[in-house]
């Protein structure tokens, strides 16, 4: 079987869990090569080798990342042309989707986003219409470019592969491209990323400006903090925490909804969660229609009691 190319974009100091998941899927599909963007340190290249990656392709010019998407897409296209993979796997961030989108046009290749499973014949399973349909889709033209959601496979243990071969790839950035002229890092919360988290505790209108009980329960469970649009629009929490149709789509093992009525736009973002717990004062909240366990009650007493109980049982 031909090699599957995995795009790894800006991992920072170490590989993310989602990168390891992509490498695990690629290994199952026939073996992995990596198109790498960002600083490649020894630790990362050793780990890539141990995960069976034989070749790491890197851009000849570090400038590719200064041009919004266009530079990275040109690099990915050039790498696909140089390596002729059977498929390309990318993460499911909006930037990764757009890199796939542009490379797809350059390569006359189909793109499928939001994959939750990939078969041996590259048939992709995904959810559409806000999780209300399960779809199987296939790329019919060119090299399949597939963006893959986090938390869909168990990461395989790293083996004892040798050092990967390094290959530099030349690519031409389009003359008409938008340039990134400033970049401010956001403060890290220490909590897992929403889209990668296995546990999410989300607050809505009912928290009335105070996310403390939501954050404390999330921390007790090692989870991420999410929010409804009402809560982010009110400025109680940053916009990047928003879950729903105009925010992030998540499918964690456990989703705890606190003070969120569960309008259809909110459900759209979370109804593929494995287990849903809902706490809301209003017994008629639509969220109770989809909850596995629902509490009609005040989140300001129920959540702290749950947090204290979890801490007690673990000590």
């Amino acid at each position, binding site marked *: 079987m031909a090699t599957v190319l995995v795009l790894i974009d800006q991992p920072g100091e170490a590989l993310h869990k989602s990168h390891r998941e992509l490498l695990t899927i690629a290994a199952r599909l026939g073996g992995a090569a990596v198109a790498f963007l960002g600083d490649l340190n020894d630790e990362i290249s050793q780990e890539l080798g141990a995960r069976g990656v034989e070749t790491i392709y890197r851009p000849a010019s570090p400038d590719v990342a200064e041009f*919004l*998407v*266009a530079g990275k*897409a040109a690099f990915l296209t050039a790498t696909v042309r140089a390596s002729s993979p059977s498929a390309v796997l990318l993460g499911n961030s*909006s930037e990764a*989707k*757009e890199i*796939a*989108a*542009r490379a*797809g*046009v*350059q390569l*006359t*290749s189909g*793109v499928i*986003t*939001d994959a939750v499973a990939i078969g041996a014949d590259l*048939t992709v399973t995904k959810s*559409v*219409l*806000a999780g209300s*349909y*399960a779809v*199987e*889709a296939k*790329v*019919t*033209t060119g090299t399949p470019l597939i963006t893959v959601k986090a938390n869909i496979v168990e990461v395989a243990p790293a083996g004892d592969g040798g050092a990967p071969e390094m290959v530099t790839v030349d690519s031409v950035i*389009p003359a008409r491209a*938008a*340039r990134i002229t400033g970049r*401010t890092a956001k403060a890290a919360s220490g909590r897992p*990323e*929403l889209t990668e988290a296995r546990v999410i505790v989300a607050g809505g209108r009912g928290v009335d400006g105070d996310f403390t009980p939501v954050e404390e329960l999330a921390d007790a469970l090692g989870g991420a903090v999410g929010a409804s649009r009402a809560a982010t629009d009110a400025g109680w929490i940053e*916009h*990047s925490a928003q879950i729903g149709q*105009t925010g992030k*789509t998540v499918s964690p093992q*456990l989703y*705890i909804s606190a003070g969120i009525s569960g309008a259809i736009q909110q459900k759209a973002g979370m*109804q593929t969660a494995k*287990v849903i*717990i809902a706490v809301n004062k209003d*017994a008629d909240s639509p969220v*109770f*229609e989809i*909850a*596995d*366990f*629902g*509490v*009609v*009650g005040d989140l300001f007493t*129920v959540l702290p*009691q*749950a947090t204290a*109980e*979890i801490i007690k049982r*673990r000590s």
Partner: protein
Amino acid sequence: MEDASQAGLDIVVLVKHVPDAQFDRHIGGEDRTTVREESILSELDEYALEAALQIVEAHGGEAAGHRVTAVTMGPPAAASAVKKALQIGAHAGVHLSDEALAGSDAAGTSRALAAVVSHLGPVDLVLTGMASTDGETSLVPAQLAERLDLPQVTFASSLELEQHGSTWSLTARRDGDVYSETVEATLPAVVSVTDQINEPRYPNFKGIMAAKKKPLTTLSLQDVGVDASEVGLAGSWTSVLTADPRPPRSQGTIISDEGDAGIRIVDFLAAQKLL
């Protein structure tokens, strides 16, 4: 391009007629395409239209020669998305209508829309929402930029234009999970905006009356020089093999808090092996 700038900005806003998410949405037929009854102007496109109208208003208005054209593609009913955009304030509307468009994926959609924009050209700015609320892929703006060979500025949460002689430049902010970025480009460009960029206005009575006199042009694929084989199911690079409605989630246990609900949540978590 320079002539167009001197005559004012020509802004195209892409609007999509999508199934209303307030109702149950369906996939149907042998083609496994989205059923488009009970459709509306995609909520996320209203932010793009508002951004276009604010740009025009900030730079001398319609009197300065600036023009906002709402463009859609799709079946005859899709014209209502353009009509709504005209009521809100777009100056002209264009509807690419052709049976062959049905079932287009992002590749086919971006092919058709790129042809419409080229047909209308020279255009200074193509504005879109951050995603359609039906397909939800966010692929089309990036593919449009690629096909039109224009700078791509996507997920803008703020957008400023500046004029330098006969050319215009833009500065946008993007708020990602890890970084906030400032992005600069020279027009023409393709820009998608998030729902954080503005508060879209509603059509008022005056706007609704004025919209009746605004031009709405219907184009065919032939008019924009696209062959039917390049769009629709024939021109898509992906294929949907199966589409099955998910079984609805069944309601679980609902309790009223009698002072121990927090503990009962933890009991439930323990029973589910989630602790």
